[in-house]
Every structure is written in C-alpha cells, then in structure tokens.
C-alpha cells in the first residue's frame, strides 16, 4: 500500500515555502521553509500547537493566501489555476454558513455554482445530510442549530460535490466522541472508495493516527515542519486498530513531536 502511494503522481508539491504576514506591529513569519509532497490518494494530517501555521498552509494550498516565497503546485498547476478548476472541497475551522440560506440551501450552494442539475442537487443534499446525521434539519436556518450541528452542516457542504482534494481544518472539533468516531469511519470509507487526496488539520493525536497515511507535525514561531510520520496501516481501518501497539507507538511519536514544539517556545 505504502509503495503504491509513494509511486502515485504528486498532487500537492511545496518547496521552501515561506509566508510572512505584514501586521501593523511588524512582520509575522507564519510559515518557514515548508517543503512537502502529497501524492494522489494520500490522507495527510497536520498536527501542531495552535498558531503554528496549519491553517495558513492549508490556505496556501487552496490559493487563499499567497506564499511570500517558495514553490507550490497543485496537480502541476498553480494553486490559483487548480482553484479555478474546482479541485478543492474546503471545511473551515469555523462553520461559516450563510445566514440567509437554510442548511439545505447552504449545502446546495456549491452545487449550484458548479452547475449540477436540479435533481442531482436534491439527491446529493439528501445524501450528505444523512451522512452527517442532519436529516430533517435541511429547512432550518444556521442560527437555529447548535454549534456542533453547524459544524456538521459545513462538513456536509464540502462533501456534497466530489472535489478531488479535500482540505479540512479541524472539522470535528465541536463534535462528541461518538459522532466523531462515526464521522471518522464515514470519512475513511469515502476516502477508500473514491481515492480522494485529503489534507486534514486536527488536534486529536488518535484521530490523526487513525485516519492518516502520513502525519505532519508542525512547530510554531515560525511555523515549520518538524516531523513527518508514515503510517503502516492500509486503506481498511477497523476501529480496533486503535488498540494495536503500532498505533500506540505512532501516537507516542506524534506526542513527542508536539511536546517538543511546545518546549521550543
């Protein structure tokens, strides 16, 4: 498995990426010398202390932020071009639903934009609503939902159209363990079935280890990559693997990396 992945064509290639924000009180280096290649079908998790640049890196990939220097290509194109070819499904850290649209309307929005047929739209909305367990809430407005429900709606929105690259910024942060486990499984199923490439930010070490083919550990001020850990697990991942010694070993290595990042400061 590992081998087939490393042979797959690269989807995201970053080389020597730097990003500096010009704030009023001086420049902030959010990313330093970040180099990373993500191949087709990989599931890469990003983990690191808050403020280490995970969101910023994801935003760079999605062409929402322009790196100050370095090379970044997506599918061999510039991120800008990839964006225009609608390569991304992005889940933001905050739900970011449009208040004037119902939940179903919010999920339908990208479909409308991408020109899906009416029937297809309705079918997809229904499907993803079920996926995130929000059937029956399609007609509510965002402010009528709880925080976790809004978060799920925003995940549903990103899954509704089949983007090749899924970028998810702490999508499951506001969910309880049970739902989280369920959605983890669903996400894995989807990934296994479709061969999407996934970039995933999380704060939960078990989640990162459970889901990913690779885990990228980052460290702050300035944000950089301190460790990249390959996972030995295949595409099929029953929940039980979480009790295996390999799992715990990797989790421990990630924890060490994280801690190092914190002590660094």
């Amino acid at each position: 498995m590992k081998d087939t992945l490393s042979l797959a064509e690269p989807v995201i290639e970053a080389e020597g990426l730097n990003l500096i924000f010009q704030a009023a009180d001086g420049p902030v280096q959010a990313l330093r010398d970040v180099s990373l290649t993500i191949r087709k079908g990989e599931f890469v998790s990003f983990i690191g202390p808050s403020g280490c640049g995970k969101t910023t890196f994801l935003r760079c990939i999605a062409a929402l932020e322009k790196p100050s220097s370095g090379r970044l290509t997506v599918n061999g194109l510039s991120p800008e071009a990839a964006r225009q070819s609608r390569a991304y499904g992005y889940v933001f850290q905050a739900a970011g639903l449009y208040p004037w649209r119902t939940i179903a309307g919010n999920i339908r929005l990208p479909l409308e934009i991408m020109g899906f047929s009416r029937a297809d739209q309705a079918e997809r909305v229904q499907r993803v609503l079920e996926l995130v367990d929000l059937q029956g809430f399609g007609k509510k407005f965002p402010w009528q939902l709880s925080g976790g429900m809004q978060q799920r709606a925003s995940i549903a929105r990103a899954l509704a159209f089949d983007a090749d690259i899924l970028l998810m910024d702490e999508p499951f942060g506001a969910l309880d363990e049970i739902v989280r486990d369920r959605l983890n499984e669903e996400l894995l199923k989807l990934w296994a079935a479709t061969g999407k490439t996934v970039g995933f930010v999380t704060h939960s070490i078990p989640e990162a280890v459970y889901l990913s083919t690779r885990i990228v550990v980052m460290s702050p001020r300035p944000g950089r990559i301190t460790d990249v850990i390959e996972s030995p697990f295949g595409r099929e991942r029953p929940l039980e693997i979480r009790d295996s010694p390999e799992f715990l070993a990797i989790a421990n290595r990630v924890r060490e990396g994280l801690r190092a990042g914190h002590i660094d400061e």
Partner: protein
Amino acid sequence: MRAWLKPVIYGAGGSLLLLGLAALFREGPRNLLADGRFWLLFAIWGAAWAVNAKIADCALRSATRGGVALLFGATLLLLWEVTVRVYQISPVILPAPSAVAAQFVASGPILWADFVQTILKGALSGWVIGCSVALLTAVLIDRSPFLQRGLLPVGNFVAALPIVGIAPILVMWFGFDWHSKAAVVVVMVFFPMLVNCVEGLKAADPMQRDLMQTWGAGWGQSLLKLRLPAAMPFIFNGLKIAGTLALIGAIVAEFFGSPVVGMGFRISAEAGRMRLDMVWAEILVAALAGTALYGAIALAEKRVTFWHPSQRGR
C-alpha cells in the same frame, strides 16, 4: 432605562419643542412662562407622552404598534391645532390642521390628479430607474478595479450636482411634463443608492468570500449568491433614503416649470395665492405617499433580510 428618567426626558424634549414653537411667534421665554396658553400646550404634550410611553411598553402586537405612532401623530396635530387657535396665528402663515383636513376632503379630484402626475409618473419611475442604474453602476464598479478608482470619484462629483441647478436644465432637455421630473429624480437618488450599494458589496465577511473562492465560483456567481445577499441590508437602506428623496425631487422639479397639474405646481401656485390650506393638503398627500412607499420598502426588507441581526430577535 430607569423609570423616572422617561418623564424627565420627554418633558425636556417637549418643552424644548414648545419653546421653539413659541419663539417662532416672538414670545420671549419670560412672557411665555407667565402665559396660560403655553401651559395648556405643555399639559397636552405631557399627558400624551405619558399615555404613549405606557402603551409602548406593553405594545407587542402590530395593531397597537400602529396605535402608538398614530397617537403620537395625533398629539402633534392637536398641539398644532391648539397653538394656531390660542395664539390666533394667521392662516396665511400657518393654517390649522382642521382647515387642511377640510381642504383635503374638498379637493379630492385635484389632489388625486396631482398625485398621479407627480408621484406615480414622476417620482416612482425616476426612483425605479435611478436605483437600478445605481445598483448596476455599483456592480460595474465592483467588477473592475479600474472603474472603481476612476468612476467612483467622478460619480460622486456628477451626482453631487445640486438639484436646484440640475432641475432647470433637465426641464429644458426633457420638456415640461413628468419626464423631466423623473430625470431629476434619477439624478437625485443615484448617489445615495450608489454609496449604499458599493458599501454593501463590501459587506460579505472574509471567510464567506474565501469559501466562494475554494469552490472556484466566478465573479458573477459570487456576486449573485454571496455579495448581493450580504449587501441587501445596505441596499434597502439606499432604497429607503432614495424613496424619500424621490418625492422631494419630483415635487421640487415642478417648481422649475410644469404643466398645470402636479403637486409641486400646486404647492408653488397656491403658496403664491396665499391658500396655504391647499399647500398643506398637498404636503399631506406627499407625506402619506412617502410613508406608504417607505412602509412598502420596509416590509420587503423584512422579507428579504430576515436573517440580518437587525431584523432577527425583534
């Protein structure tokens, strides 16, 4: 607000108003306070506000809401009527509301004809055209940064041309009938509408825009699905302000030449004849029409921008 504050504030407000009114008729403040007539007016004001504040505090249904507004208006009218009577103000300066009402009833057909000419033909068509053009311009400006930098300052400049200068010119260009009035209205409402639209198109929040970007939404799509909805509170703001300006514009433009029908024509002609009750009857028509237009816009706003915090939770 603390309970005792209310009467104090309203009392103060009321006395200021009355003092102002009285000053208009050259009563020194000192004579004023010694004058029983003033205290009569003051008592009316105070009593009415007390009642009003009471109702408003428990008014929840829309019927009573309207009642509060009506009561307030009735109070003003009563004060006006009483002032005119007790101070014996010449009808050539300020007619009593009762005289205006009588005139209003007596001149129904004339008022209707004027209303059709000025409001329906002049103001409304101008308002529709002006607001649409402003919205289109805002969108156009938004589309092109070049135009934004070039057209906005120049647009400000052109739209700031005062109506008094514009009206005679437009009457010369578009003739005496309502077309020139509509043109004046277009020019007049353009700027307020444009400013609000441009401001509104900037109102979508950054994360919402980023989302559109990740979907590779085109400019038109993100305009239609994000920027316009997010701009709606501002656009309605513009529509409301433009609505009242449209009436003013259409009426004022008639001062600079008109056929012998129309509210502005009537107002200027009758003012010259000292028939102020007729003038005020026309003003009443204008006020009714304006309030109706405003109410209609507000209703539409409520429907369209139900999601905005300013509409929610009230």
